[in-house]
């Protein structure tokens, strides 16, 4: 009994530094965020306990919160579809030509290494209408008819109630996808390389065509990786902030995403409200992640990868 306790004590002493750091930098701020979300104050002087008032404000009264969730959702939808499809196609191409794959891996991944702010500022210089570098290229290539104010927030493509989809939002979604596809590419490539080559050989012997191999071998076995990429894409994109701030500064609220709202409330000394928004966003993202996992399990069981 004594020896067992001693052994546990020694084991605990090894994980204690990590536990301490995790508690100080993760658990304490997390709990403190909860406490602040029930208060009205600016982080310096807490004036009063307000119960659930901040959550009510976020969920029912703040006219900009749900549009910001929609704008974040729109950029996420773009990333889930356009970005991840491009990443998958490139991963498939590189997987087949693995000898030159290392170079492509570096080329495609390098964008992810760059700071979001730098990408935002660079893309702004390229895309602004006067004297935007992109427009100049188009002009020189004889594509003058395509000249455009790419960050134009007044050009509404379609509107649903209070929510307006503008050119600026679509451009933001494209830039975000362009910057982020490297992550998805690397993860999907690793997933593809983990699929045993013998399965493809057997399929070929049985006379399966490429698309049949893809549908019946690649896609089912890649499903866990695709789900992981989807979850990471949703979490990453819904929390996107710096690049959008540098690119459009929210464009009068028309490209404002949830984290930008949280940031604006922090700057406006509404710390309680900002914390409540952070918690609401966190809960929504956790719910989405769990739903994705359930869907993934269901899909895999349908394909026979997992027992149903």
């Amino acid at each position, binding site marked *: 009994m004594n020896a067992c306790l001693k052994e546990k004590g020694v084991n605990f002493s090894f994980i204690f*530094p990590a536990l301490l750091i995790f508690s*100080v930098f993760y658990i304490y701020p997390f709990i403190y965020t909860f406490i602040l979300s029930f208060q009205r104050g600016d982080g310096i*002087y807490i004036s009063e306990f307000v119960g659930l008032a901040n959550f009510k404000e976020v969920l029912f009264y703040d*006219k900009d919160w749900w549009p910001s969730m929609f704008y974040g959702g729109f950029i996420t939808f773009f990333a889930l579809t356009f970005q991840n499809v491009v990443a998958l196609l490139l991963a498939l191409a590189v997987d087949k030509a693995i000898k030159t794959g290392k170079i492509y891996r570096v080329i495609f991944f390098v964008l992810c290494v760059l700071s979001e702010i730098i990408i935002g500022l660079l893309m702004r210089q390229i895309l602004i209408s006067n004297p935007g570098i992109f427009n100049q290229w188009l002009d020189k290539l004889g594509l003058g008819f395509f000249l455009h104010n790419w960050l134009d927030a007044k050009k509404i493509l379609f509107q649903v109630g209070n929510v307006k989809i503008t050119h600026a939002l679509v451009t933001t979604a494209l830039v975000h996808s362009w910057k982020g596809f490297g992550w998805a590419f690397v993860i999907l490539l690793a997933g593809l390389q983990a699929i045993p080559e013998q399965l493809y050989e057997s399929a070929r012997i049985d006379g399966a065509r490429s698309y049949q191999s893809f549908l019946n071998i690649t896609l089912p076995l890649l499903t866990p990786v695709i789900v992981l990429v989807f979850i990471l894409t949703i979490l990453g994109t819904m929390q996107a902030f710096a690049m959008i701030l540098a690119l459009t500064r929210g464009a009068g609220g*028309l490209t404002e995403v949830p984290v930008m709202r949280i940031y604006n409330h922090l*700057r406006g*000394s509404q710390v309680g409200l900002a914390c409540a928004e952070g918690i609401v966003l966190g809960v929504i993202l956790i719910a989405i992640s769990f739903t994705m996992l359930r869907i993934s399990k269901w899909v895999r069981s349908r394909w026979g990868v997992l027992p149903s």
Partner: protein
Amino acid sequence: MHLSKVVWCFIVIIALISGCAPRQDTDEKKIVIWHWMNDRKSAFEELAKRYTSQTNIPVKFKLFFPPDIYSQKVIAAARAGSLPEIFGILGEKKSLSSFIKAGHILDLTPVMKENANEWKDSFYPQTLQTTVFEKGNFYDVKPGIYGVPIDTTLMQFVYNRELFKRAGLDPDKPPQTFDEFITYAQTIKDKLGVDGFICGWGEGWLLNCLATEWAINIMDEQRFIQTLEGKIPYTDEKWIQVFSLFEKIKDSGILAADITTMINKEAEDAFSKGKAAFSFNGSWSVNVYKQLSPELDYAFFSLPKAANASFKIWGGAGSSFMVKAKSSNKDEAIKFLKWLTARKQQKFLIKNTNNLAAIKGCEQDLPPILSPLTDNLDRLTHPNIWPYNEDSRVIEVMNKGLQQTVMGVKTPQEVAQEVQQIKQRVGRR
């Protein structure tokens, strides 16, 4: 063996915990100052050297840039109890009031009033007023003077004289009225193909400054304050008139493209390169334009009036320093701030940073471009001197509404209604 591992773990943990502990004030006479003023870094460092050579007291200016980072640093330090002897606070007066109520800032009233108000009276009244809390103030702060201004800032229109000449306009006669402003900007745009007006309207506060100046011009300051108090709604016809000015500017076609996603640095860069005829900027821009384009021929002018009535200029203390209430070196910190705001040091700052002084009597030393601005010092107004302050959520809705008006996405009436709705809801809370 195990025992030695446990001892080592204990030492590491103690070291970690003590590393996280707040800095203890020592009796050492050293003054540390935190600031965010990137453009004044070298001037401050030179002044610190001079003070140290005169008094043998080490002075260290620590720059944290950009301002957002600085603000978060000060808030974190306040909570951790590790503020330096002297620091500045960015943001609204509400933030300053929170720091005071939390006991972080020293009331300087006794030292300001020494020798028959000698130090207090050396400042421009409107500049000092931004750090003063009167009896029965809106913020429920103990009355007092809580900061030392080191310069004065005001927001003005600025125009490119060279473009005026090239467009056949008299460079010594800037527009006096709103209609003249639009006409001049259109003329320059039509003749020279440059933008009529540029400003960092991606930063909502610049729109808010301008809206405030026009609101006071159209409805007078008293009625403006009554709106903040909740006695006059934002849906009042005078307010709609104010919001409509932004729609008129948009309709005139003088605005630079991307203006609502542009930061002020970008607008300053474009104006300094002659890409726009007019801009709306602070007096600090003299230093910025000098660095970006030393040959730029430009001048400031007062608000182009939208109504035939008096007007006010948004301005006051550009930057102020506060003394940490619990500092063991507060007497030395006060002595240093007195020295910093003495005429000799203020003149040094004018020469090296091209800002208006915080104290009276330095007008002769101002660069020619800044001299005319001193005529407007009695017109200064600022949220920090108003008896009521607008809630940040109301300001946010107004700024976004104006940005969308400039884009043509919202009408002035819609903006007025949205601002009034949030005003009523915030008032109820």
